[in-house]
């Protein structure tokens, strides 16, 4: 019943995190020498820190790694966009444009400068929040993204505050009734939801709630002039779609992580103390299942921000995803680069927070010997 759960997830995580402690000196040291030069003269600083407070050392290491990773991603985005075939000037002016006209536009946009110069110029601006001007509309990219990002986050936020508690709660419920009817029902429904592509789920919801029953708003386009109530009603369907899509993954992971912990000796101890099963799950199992669950939640949150392109297109919702897709079709490179970098940043930093939370949740690191 309990013996054949999945592999020792949480335990492995715990030992891996603990095992990294001694190495953090080396990794962080190398980051320091390539990225920001901190304390070059005292190599033992990291060794000392990771010994006295491994928690701080590990968190600093994660921060440094995330920043380094973001720089690497910016390089890849820029390189990738450079490598794209085709050219804004030719697309913009058409096939019959004179070489002189193309040359002028290239000069206007600064495309005649070498790639490295343009990269550092772009990066310098990006760090200060200035992503340059859109080639197509000549407007400031930052300004436009600001509005679109706000919309995307608005949608993601509501999807998250519904799906995360729901997923964790359903996961615990499934453990409580494991292999019985409620568990099976939860499993089947969530599996069905994750198996259908999100555009299909979206169309189904539109068909039932907007077309047949007429209770929901469609399309989900929001305007500046809308009140908060109108906005909420507009995003009801896309939010529901997103919740259905991300729910199953988080729910199943919560169930698996807690079940894995439920087969451990300390849960048996709790059972032999005569505690109620609810207390056993909430107090003895859940705290030890936090690390893997947090990771899945972070992945899904990142998906909510980054992966909603399809949902935004289906519901005609003016978010980041749609903006980026539009920019790619007209080769509006500053917009593509900016969107790419912002998506990457969300992804990296959400995962970093998950890592840090998982580290903080580990009593071995929080309370070193």
């Amino acid at each position, binding site marked *: *019943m*309990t*013996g054949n759960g999945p592999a020792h997830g949480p335990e492995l995580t*715990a030992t891996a995190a603990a095992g990294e402690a*001694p190495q953090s000196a080396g990794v962080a040291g190398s980051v320091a020498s390539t990225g920001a030069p901190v304390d070059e003269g005292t190599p033992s600083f990291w060794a000392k820190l990771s010994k006295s407070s491994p928690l701080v050392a590990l968190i600093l290491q994660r921060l440094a790694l995330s920043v380094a990773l973001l720089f690497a991603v910016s390089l890849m985005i820029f390189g990738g966009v450079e490598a794209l075939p085709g050219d804004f000037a030719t697309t913009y002016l058409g096939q019959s444009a004179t070489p002189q006209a193309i040359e002028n536009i290239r000069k206007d946009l600064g495309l005649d400068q070498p790639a490295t110069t343009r990269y550092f110029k772009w990066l310098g601006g990006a760090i200060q929040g200035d992503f340059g001007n859109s080639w197509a509309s000549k407007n400031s990219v930052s300004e436009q993204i600001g509005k679109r990002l706000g919309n995307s986050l608005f949608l993601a936020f509501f999807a998250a505050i519904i799906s995360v508690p729901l997923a964790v709660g359903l996961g615990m419920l499934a453990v409580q009734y494991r292999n019985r009817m409620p568990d099976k029902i939860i499993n089947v429904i969530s599996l069905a939801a994750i198996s259908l592509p999100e555009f299909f789920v979206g169309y189904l919801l539109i068909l039932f709630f907007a077309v047949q029953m007429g209770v929901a708003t469609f399309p989900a386009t929001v305007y500046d002039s809308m009140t908060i109530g109108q906005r909420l009603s507009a995003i009801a369907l896309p939010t529901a779609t997103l919740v259905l899509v991300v729910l199953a993954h988080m729910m199943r992971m919560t169930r698996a992580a807690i079940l894995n912990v439920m087969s*451990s*000796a*300390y849960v*048996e*101890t*709790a*059972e*032999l*103390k*005569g*505690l*109620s099963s609810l*207390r056993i799950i909430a*107090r*003895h199992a859940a*705290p*030890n299942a936090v690390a893997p669950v947090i990771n899945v939640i972070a992945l899904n949150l990142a998906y909510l921000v980054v992966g909603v392109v399809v949902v935004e297109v289906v519901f005609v919702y003016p978010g980041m995803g749609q903006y980026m897709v539009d920019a790619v079709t007209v080769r509006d490179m500053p917009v593509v680069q900016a969107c790419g970098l912002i998506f990457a940043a969300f992804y990296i930093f959400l995962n970093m927070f998950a890592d840090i939370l998982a580290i903080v949740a580990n*009593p*071995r690191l929080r*309370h070193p*010997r």
Partner: protein
Amino acid sequence: MPDLLSVRNLKIEATSYPPGEPPKTVTLVEGVNFDVQKGKVLGLIGESGAGKSTIGLTALAYGRGGVRITGGEVKLNGEDLLKLGPAGIRKVRGCKVCYVAQSAAAAFNPAHRLGEQVIEASLKHGVMGRAEAEKRALYLFKVLGLPSPETFGQRYPHQVSGGQLQRAMTAMALCPNPELIVFDEPTTALDVTTQIDVLAAIKHAIEETHTAALYITHDLAVVAQITDDILVLRHGKMVEYGSVKQIIEAPTQDYTRALVNVRGTKREEAPDQSDTLLKVDNITAGYSNGFKVLQNVSLHLPKGQTLAVVGESGSGKSTLARVITGLLPPQEGTISFDGTPLPRALKGRTNDQLRRIQMIYQMADTAMNPRQTVRDIIGRPLTFYYGLRGARKTERVKELLEQIEMGGRFADRYPAELSGGQKQRVAIARALAAQPELILCDEPTSALDPLVAEGILKLLLKLQDETHVSYMFITHDIAIVRAIADSVAVMHRGRLVRFGPKSKVLSPPFDDYTDLLLKSVPEMEIGWLEKVLTTRRMESAGN
């Protein structure tokens, strides 16, 4: 006196799911009867699979995994626990009957402080208020001899040692003032020098609180120190039930007699120890974090003889074996084999050098590929070192199986189809297949039941007589050292404390550590524990 716990006609079953077959119901325990009076201790003893733990847990009406109690009665103060519903049994668990697990390290929740876990059951059952429970926990920490009892409860499980955790677990069981405690091998996972402290603490605590107990162990010498009665079990059935005195001094059953006299193997040390095979010179080794596991270790091993390396966990015994095999290149020092220095790392050694040193591990289970048959496992070194194939290989595998007293019919079995002792025999055959001159044995018997372990030791000695192979035998068990060694190395915290022929090392004058180690080994003698504790007290008073 009325019985506190009375078990009658106990029957316990489990359902097993063999792959490809319909589920089977297996009877684990049948026809077991025993009684425990108030304030008395009953020892349950037997080898693994005897149903000791399963029977112990019935006192809490608990079945581990798919185990079900299907018959008989378990009466606590006249009330049948098996007839109580889930809510009723919850009131008994952790309140009237408590449990101390074998591995306290796994049984404590890593996410909560020890103190909270110790008093949790008392609070939840409403036995006492928080202030009172904390006071009692403090009292118990003191009784059990835990260091700085005032702050002990604020620590997390990973912050204290294994022996301390085992004592904390005992405190956790004693806290709600239960009528009965089930101790499930509470000292088996501990070093001998720690075991004696924990045993003394448990005994003292039981006497102080007048709690009754079921004490489960496979070590008759341990149970003789702590219990009033003993129940000997085998294959889920009762073998013998009587007072400690009767069981130890006048056992009536053959099986009990075998358990009492288990340490029958004895070898005289070889008189001439001059023909050196392995010479370890001034080895210092450690891991990348700078911690030195071995410091300046020098020893040597004569041809065809056995060197026992003895010490507690963490003393560097296994690391020494890793250094000799080349798995862990030493930071300093040299190793020479048969007069020629060995390259430090595994990579630098020739196939022939590798062939001449083989290894046997503690867990034969994990040292063999579960998807290979015995033929493949033993045949691999034959092909690798000697290029044997086909009929010649089959013939040789059969020969080796005969040599380890198993016979050719085992060749097509998988490791999962073998018992623990048989697996270890196959591991020995695999080592022998290379025809080595030295076999490093890393605690090959410590995971086995005493009678099975005895068989392995006898086999090893027989093979030594036949093939003149040398053994470096790593163990924490002094009795094994006495039985099979020619020379002995005592290790403590990475240093060699004592080294020489067995007769010299194991006879006085001792250094402090060897003395402690030798005195900590339980002897099959009633009152041994008191005697040791009294001597200790006198010694510390004398200092």
